[in-house]
């Protein structure tokens, strides 16, 4: 299963590193990364493959959420199908 990890917040040093570290800790493979500044907000989107996670999806998602909280960022982990179904016919 592929998930989209989205990170929204103020730009700062090391955001990508921190998020990638959690991915690596949980054995989530990063397939693609895009980042941009939208409406003064730093936005990073990461596509990850999580079929070989060493924890449950829920734990992975919670870890990301905690990381976001600790750094003043909004981090969400969502199944890629939600975006595919909404934006592609």
């Amino acid at each position, binding site marked *: 299963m592929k998930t989209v990890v989205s990170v929204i917040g103020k730009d700062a040093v090391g955001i990508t590193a921190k998020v990638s570290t959690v991915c690596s800790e949980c054995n989530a493979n990063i397939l693609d990364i895009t980042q941009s500044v939208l409406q003064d907000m730093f936005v990073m989107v990461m596509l990850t493959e999580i079929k070989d996670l060493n924890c449950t999806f829920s734990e992975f998602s919670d870890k990301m959420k905690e990381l976001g909280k600790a750094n003043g960022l909004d981090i969400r982990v969502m199944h890629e199908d939600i975006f595919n179904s909404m*934006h592609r016919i």
Partner: protein
Amino acid sequence: MINIHDIMETINMISEENLDIRTITMGISLLDCCDSDPEKACEKIYNKITRLAGNLVKTGEDIEKEFGIPIINKRISVTPISMIIASSGGDPVMYAKTLQRAADATGVNFIGGFSALVHKGFSAGDEELIRAIPRALAETTNVCSSVNIGSTKAGINMDAVKLMGQIVREAAEITADRECIGCAKLVVFCNAVEDNPFMAGAFHGVGEPDCVIHVGVSGPGVVQAAIKKYPNATLGELAEIIKRTAFKITRMGQLVGTEASKRLGVPFGIVDLSLAPTPAVGDSVAHILEEMGLDSCGIHGTTAALAMLNDAVKKGGVMASSYVGGLSGAFIPVSEDAGMIAAARSGDLSLQKLEAMTAVCSVGLDMIVIPGETPAEVISAIIADEAAIGMVNSKTTAVRVIPAIGKQKGEELDFGGLLGSGPIMDVNLNKLPTKFIDRAGRIPAPLQSLKN
């Protein structure tokens, strides 16, 4: 990879514009739970519901987490209980309590189906159930009840209309100490649908499979936000914008529905293409109408704006889902919509206007607080008027009014949660329809019914 702007749009819809899946509703047939012993029948009902819906809430929460989309309600609808009483007998309230027990065990927040279908007449079990509705709703918290009193094919059963006026009053009276909450869980329908996932009117029709999953989507805030971006668009252009937005909302419903059906091993029924408001700011159908250019919901122009909105929602949604059903359209429940509440308080929104609005949208006079002294025959007449609109226009209409027992104009009822709160609205009590309602009998099916 998916476009970053698309990803941001989806996240924004969820976090800023209150986009959610309003409900996953599991429909369960209870026809195989009949028994000559009513207690055994109740036990079979409890066992069947808990067996099939045991994982419903958990599955809903899992999907919520994985897909990152809030699923507000997990609910159950069952075969109209009057059909079970017809063969199993016993006190209807005992069945309501069984449904409550099943709701507690499964953790769902509403269970619908304490219902009777009497559009042409009463059969065994129907009248007993209807007369027990006030008590059943007073003695349970999560059980919802509905009665279908008319249809385009059958006409309107005015005996049932007369009875329901009394039942609505009674349901309010015996829950008067709890904001008359009984009436918030009771819907009187014309042309009730068999696959409605929304409460309080959900029941599992006899033409449905043994067990099925329906999904109801929401998203008034998303539509409002989309319209806001185009202050100078013509109405034709607005319709396009609404269609595009409705398409996206519905796709999400379709995805969640198919996923839930796969995980629960239950067939997928329908997506209900609805705009279902909540009392939260930014989740209001009235505010969409105001965003379209009305100073307040309820003024002249409201019906036209609502008609366009309702139509565009359906046109946009219908291609996004493989099976569309339920009530499908914009809901206008007064107490559950921040904009409607404000318009009712200011006097811009009247009962008469609401009645006109129900002719062009889903579903009917919904969650409207009326004066406590409103007599049963006036409630019956309100039901009859609304049923006539549904019957002639071949659409579902419904009445869910709450007589605020012991309260006067200017006061409000506060139900809390998604049911919201509402001011008492004006009802014409100067002259009465007593003679008309007392005639009873049946209004014949209209010419529209002769389609063959």
